[in-house]
């Protein structure tokens, strides 16, 4: 191989790597154990739903939660009502997902549930489905089309729950903000918006809270440190640097708002490496390792999105749409999803998308988990007691109730 040709190959390699790492890397890893669903309703098949085919197009199975919790939630709900469940996994590719949707439609889909790889790249597939008169549920991630039903957890509420818990524990002092990937609207917009709704900005303006890691003067974009690709190692390096700087300037870190669990793990590792102790720290996703940290007292709160309940809501909505119910008046059966996560109104509500569309939506509520209510994640079968209480001294009086 000639020298010139080889020299030309490296940039190409970097492009390929960047392309491969791109879409998947900008999502927060949301990990969970792999367990079969056991809590699905087991009603007998009834009339119209019996011949309903619900098709799901997943953008990926790399993140464990989809296969572990969301898929069983939808599948069991649909099959319990006598419907047929089919799905496809697009492996993080926009093109593959469009092909998948075509295939699912030709396999006889009556309703489509789409976990879109991209909110706009999916639109050709949405058009195809609209032409066929197949209703679409945008599952967990928004699709910019006025015809869809949007079923998700409230990401702003996740941020609000994180900040409420931490602000209650530490009403004033020095805060560190650890944000996720700068290209993810959850990291840059929705979660910080929730923090502000909980009163973070007001307290900063009132001088009760100081943010130790401001990168400029603008709020919220310069507040806190971003973590490229939500990577744990990056969060760890950044947190170590922030601790070094705080120590050098004689500041103490009183609380840390981390946007999700993969960054919170990095923060805990940095605190341990620096033997700093464990100031109250937030996270979200309900990853087993983080819930374990909550039990160990290393993480204060973990905001949990019960994906099983989200799956149930989507499955039931799909069946209702199958029966020909109108999207605008769609109502969720009371008690279908756990009341603690159910939306405020059980009838579909209007949701204004960032792209200017108005869609119908069910927005579920997240659950903040602290050491006081760890039993919730055990009861739901989300983690096993072994995972939750690994390394906890159960004999000690300080052990959380759930581990005793």
């Amino acid at each position, binding site marked *: *191989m000639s*020298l010139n040709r*080889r*020299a030309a*190959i*490296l940039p190409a*390699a*970097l492009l*390929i*790597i960047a392309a*491969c*790492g791109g879409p998947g*890397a900008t999502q927060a*890893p949301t*990990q*969970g*154990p*792999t367990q079969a669903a056991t809590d699905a309703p087991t009603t007998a098949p009834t009339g119209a739903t019996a011949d309903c085919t619900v098709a799901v197009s997943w953008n990926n199975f790399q*993140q*464990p939660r989809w*296969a572990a919790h969301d898929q069983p939630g939808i599948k069991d709900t649909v099959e319990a009502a006598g419907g047929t469940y089919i799905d496809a996994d697009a492996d993080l590719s926009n093109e593959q997902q469009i092909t998948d949707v075509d295939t699912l439609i030709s396999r006889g889909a009556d309703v489509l549930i789409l976990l879109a790889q991209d909110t706009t790249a999916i639109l050709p597939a949405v058009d195809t489905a609209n032409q066929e008169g197949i209703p679409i549920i945008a599952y967990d991630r928004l699709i910019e089309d006025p015809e869809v039903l949007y079923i998700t957890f409230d990401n702003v509420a996740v941020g609000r729950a994180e900040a409420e818990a931490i602000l209650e524990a530490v009403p004033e002092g020095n805060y560190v903000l650890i944000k996720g990937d*700068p290209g993810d609207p959850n990291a840059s917009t929705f979660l910080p918006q929730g923090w502000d709704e909980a009163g973070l900005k007001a307290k900063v303006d009132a001088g009760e809270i100081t943010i130790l*890691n*401001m*990168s*400029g003067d603008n709020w919220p974009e310069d507040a806190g*440190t*971003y*973590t*490229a*690709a*939500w*990577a*744990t*190692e*990056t969060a*760890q*390096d*950044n947190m*170590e*640097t922030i601790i*070094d*700087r705080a*120590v*050098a*300037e004689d500041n103490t870190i009183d609380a840390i708002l981390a946007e999700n669990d*993969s960054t919170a*793990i*990095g923060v805990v*590792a940095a605190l*341990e*490496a*620096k*033997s*700093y*102790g464990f100031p109250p720290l937030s996270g979200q996703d309900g990853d087993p*390792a983080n819930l*374990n940290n909550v039990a160990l007292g290393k993480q204060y709160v973990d905001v949990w999105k019960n994906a099983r309940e989200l799956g149930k809501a989507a499955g039931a909505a799909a069946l209702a749409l199958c029966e020909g119910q109108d999207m605008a008046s769609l109502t969720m059966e009371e008690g279908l999803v756990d009341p603690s996560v159910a939306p405020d109104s059980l009838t579909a509500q209007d949701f204004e998308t960032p792209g200017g569309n108005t869609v119908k939506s069910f927005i579920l509520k997240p659950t903040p988990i602290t050491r006081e209510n760890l039993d919730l994640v055990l009861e739901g079968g989300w983690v096993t007691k072994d995972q939750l209480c*690994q*390394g906890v001294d159960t004999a000690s009086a300080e052990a959380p109730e759930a581990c005793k």
Partner: protein
Amino acid sequence: MTNLADAPPQAVSAPPRQRRSFRDLVLQTEINFRLFGMLVALAVILLVFHVWSGGTFLRPENMLSLAVQASGIAVISTGMVLVIVSRNIDLSVGSIVGIVAMTYAVLMTDVMPGLLGMAGDFPFRWLIALGLGMGLGLAVGALQGFIIAYIGVPSFIVTLGGLLSIRGAIWYFSRGAAVSGLDEDFQLIGGGAEGSIGGTATWVVAVLGSAAILALLYYNRRQRRRYGFPLRPIWAETLLASLGVLFVWGLAWVANRNFWPRGLAEAYARANNIPIPEGGLLIPAGLPYPVVIVIAVALLMTWIATRRRFGRYVYAYGGNPEAAELAGINTRWTIMKTFMLIGILCAIAGAIAAARLNGATLDIGVSYELYVIAAAVVGGTSFAGGIGTIPGAVLGAFVMQAIAYGLSYVGVNSPGQNVVAGIVLILAVGFDAWNRRRGT
């Protein structure tokens, strides 16, 4: 000529004695001009951040954080030099780091206590896990190396495949979840206050280090005289010796000015009934284990590259593959060995990463390949083959991390850090190209 590139080229052509410019004086010391330039650049970078941060940057704690953060990349970059010198590339290093880190975590939390019946108190359990992980790194490297060297698939393709498929395998390996809770002994590999060798050991390292420098300079001079090679002037020898010794003692001093965090020191004092003096108990932490590992790996790899037959074959092949083949070098085996070596180095870096995290996540090691290649290239390794040094790559890793750490310290976010890192990479290679065309 290229296969001698890692030795100071001035050693081949004796410097003319009659001219007395500054450049000649520098040439007479036979200091590698490029390495020296990088040291200066590193110092300038650190100073700039010191001023930028309002004078809080240059503290021993910060320097050691920086060094620990660079350690994984630095370790792998020593192997990447040999891979790139022999005209190949390894894009799979990050994925190998990931799968080996996950192996350590799964072994210690699951397989060992379960399948193998080795409970947490099993003697040297962490060492067994480390051995198995390094075995895995070696095996993956050997497989890729075999396909590249003996079957003839371009290394770019093979390791790109490795990058993808190994990263995918990690998911199945861990059943998709983060794994945490490693052995306490294993965690020491990751550094931190307790993961450091301590004050006394650091001074011992300094004594041994300076003795080694003096002995090497003496031995080198004796050998040159014996074979009739030109000698360095005595003033140059003295300068080199003083600089080397000064550097070693400076490093030890910085490491020992890094004290245990107050809380940890007080807990230790209470546990051992030591009275806490006024102003706090100052226990020197010394060199963190990851930094010790980097130093050891760099020395060992330099020895392999410059003093072992294998290392010389690598440079010979990189300089001119056909000539090396015709000279009777078993080039395929040589190439395969470079990949085996980098596999082991990835396993060491994986141990540092897993120990620092006290566990493994699915994304551990992601994009390491880019930083490792950048470190090697900033350190003077050429994609044309045959050129590159191990100390250069290690310094390159520190330069890149100094920039990342410094920008992070003064509050510049990751997009800004990437912009600067990219520009530095291009500048460094541009400088090399310019320097080479100028003809030294």
